[in-house]
């Protein structure tokens, strides 16, 4: 019957549902709105509309919908070197993870008090020894890298704070960024930018550079605050420290938005 296709074409079905699945590839026909199709072809809708009008693309208009044969359109897109991916067919980009916060990284790393040592190397050594979530070879690797980094330039960022970190992420070490907070037993000469001895170290261990920069930027926001530095000088306990960090981060987020 010659009109047999009519009902398929005018029925308003869900966008990426098969309208008809015939025996041959030439029979597989789909209905999509122009906007959806334009997205699939990564083109402006106006261009798709014009191409349909000009007959440059194997699609027919049916009101606001386009009717097309999927395999024919795929072939057409391929011969013209155009992208074509139907929505829903490809896996959407992974759900965007909530960006890492200092609070989470610091909770994972833990807060340690009374780190012993008189020199940069010795405090780093005793700080790294406290890291219990790394096994011994990883700890010594981390120590090596921290010392290497300190040799390049001091990570003492002033006001008695040091942020030792490896220059590049350690491969295969950890899965999530970690900040280990270490309050020193006594301030240590650290060749810091303001020549003040360092009394607290934040060891930043990251999996990617982006995370490192993001956490560093958040940490430096806290450091700019006199109130925060005064608070650090009191050598707070683990819980009080993390609560304060959380509070500062909230302030930072609200200032940003």
């Amino acid at each position: 019957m010659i009109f047999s296709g009519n009902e398929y074409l005018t029925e308003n079905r869900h966008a990426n549902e098969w309208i008809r699945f015939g025996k041959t590839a030439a029979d597989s026909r789909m209905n999509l709105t122009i906007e959806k199709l334009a997205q699939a072809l990564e083109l402006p809708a106006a261009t798709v509309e014009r191409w349909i009008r000009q007959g440059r693309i194997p699609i027919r208009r049916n009101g606001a919908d386009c009717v097309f044969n999927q395999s024919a359109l795929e072939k057409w897109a391929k011969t013209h070197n155009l992208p074509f991916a139907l929505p829903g067919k490809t896996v959407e980009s992974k759900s965007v993870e909530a960006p890492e916060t200092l609070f989470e990284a610091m909770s994972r790393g833990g807060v340690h008090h009374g780190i012993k040592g008189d020199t940069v190397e010795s405090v780093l050594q005793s700080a790294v020894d406290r890291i219990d979530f790394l096994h011994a070879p990883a700890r010594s690797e981390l120590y090596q890298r921290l010392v290497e980094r300190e040799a390049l330039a001091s990570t003492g960022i002033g006001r008695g704070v040091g942020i030792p970190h490896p220059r590049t992420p350690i491969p295969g070490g950890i899965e999530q960024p970690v900040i280990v907070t270490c309050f020193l037993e006594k301030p240590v000469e650290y060749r810091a930018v303001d020549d003040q001895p360092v009394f607290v170290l934040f060891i930043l261990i990251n999996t990617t550079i982006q995370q490192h920069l993001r956490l560093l930027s958040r940490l430096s926001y806290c450091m700019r605050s006199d109130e925060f530095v005064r608070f650090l000088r009191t050598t707070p306990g683990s819980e009080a420290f993390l609560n304060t960090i959380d509070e500062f981060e909230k302030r930072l987020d609200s200032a940003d938005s």
Partner: protein
Amino acid sequence: MIPMKRFWRYPAKWALFRWDDRLLLIVMGVIVGVCSGLAALVLNRSLIAMLDALHAYRHFWWAFVLPAVGAMLSALFLEKIVKEGPGHGVPEVIDSVLRYGGLLRFRSSFSRLISACLTIGSGGSAGPEAPVVISGSAIGSNIAGFFSLNERQRVTLVGCGAAGAIAAIFNAPISGMIFAIEVIIGQWSALNIIPIAIAAVAGTQVSRRLQGNQIAFSHRVFDIGFIDILACLGLAMLTAVMSILLTRMLRKMHGVSTRTDLSVWYRAAIGGAAVGGLAILLPDVLGEGYHAIGSMISGHYPKGLAIAGAMMLAKILATSLTLGWGGSGGIFAPCLVIGSFSGLFWQRFLSSVWPAVPWVDEGCFALIGMAGMVGGMLQAPLTGIFLIVEITGGYDVILPLILVSAISTALCHYVEPASFYLKDLVEKGRFLLPGTDGRVLADLSVDELLEKDCIVVHQNLLLREFINIVKKSHRNHFPVEDEKTGQFLGMVSLDDIRPFLFDVVMYDTVFLEQLMRKQVETADPDDDLAVILQKMDTKHLYSLPVIDNGRFVGMLSKATLLDQYRRELRVQTPY
């Protein structure tokens, strides 16, 4: 949902055609071919009837006013009743194919038939081919519109109409097909050729059914020697010169007539009267002139070198007078007539200079001259070759035909790079072949290139607030709108304010109003992309804000343009 009653208007949805839309075009091609074939026959029959009716008055002294009256009526009809421009109209068809997807008005399918019938039937020197081509094309275009076909399909049907018309009027299917592809569509692709071929067959069949399978100018077999082929080189040059002369004369006459202050029908009447006056001396200049061609090919044309030369020039003059002054009709038939006179002249010239050489019959040279003239004038060598082969039913002259047609086309191309049909379009910059820079830019609209991910700011923002916005943005340009009215005020570009970004003192002291650039180049959504690009090139800009009625609508950047341009080019280039 489309009601069932109207379903037949959307054949593209029928199961059969959904399977393959080429079938649809073939079926449509048959319909268009038949219709345009009929249109061609109508004009042909009415021309004959009109010539017969007026024949009785030809011997009166006042007969010279007949072409004047005919041309005047034709101009009046075109100007006042159907409101179409004068001239032969083929450029309009080509223009519509190139730029408007073959869109033609319905009235074009009959208007030129009537006006051409008046002009030519009364004795004006013009051809009936261009009018039937236009009416065939318009029929094709309107059938495509009726069945809601897309532009590519419509262009093919316009070609089908032209092919059917030429095929029917000359009883020459191959010429119809080649004319449509070579002259009207200008592109060879398998998608076009098949429906056009079918339409040519349909048009020819209609013509054969209704007026018999006659070959227009049948002739005896010519015995062409090597020396004749050599002589053809001279003929090629002669026809090339005549083509250029006719092109220039037509345009010159048109220029002269438009400079006069007379109204269109007055002008047409003057042209017609001049032709009528010329016809007192040389009556063969009248009408489309096929009778003269017939007698030349059969070798019965009055003897004498001078008469052939005079007729050749007189026909050029008469055609220029008729068409240049506002008569309606085509140049195809005059081309054939002038071509055959050129051939005749050349043969008679050779015979008088070297009487001892056994030159082939003058009819043969007349044939070859026609091909040379068509090739030169239309810059369509294949149309010339196949038309002559078909209308004379002789394959024996093919070698000199090809030679003369090719050489004449090449020579004319050297002097007049654009064919007569395309000259106007090229001059107006409207000859835009698919896949060329001009065409790609003409097709793309500003709308398709707009980038709307810009962050709009207002003029009362402090630099500090602005820097917070910059942190989150991905772009370097920020349009500034008036806080209250929403009018576009100017642009802030990161490049301009970079030095201030690190100056904390300025954060709370400077407003965006002080930082923005007020004199910025902008584009309008309706601007031509070619113009916008020109602006960008001369001002060394990479992006422009697009402003519609004082409001910012988006950015236009060269990077996006390049992406879109490449896609467009890929889609337009035939594969």
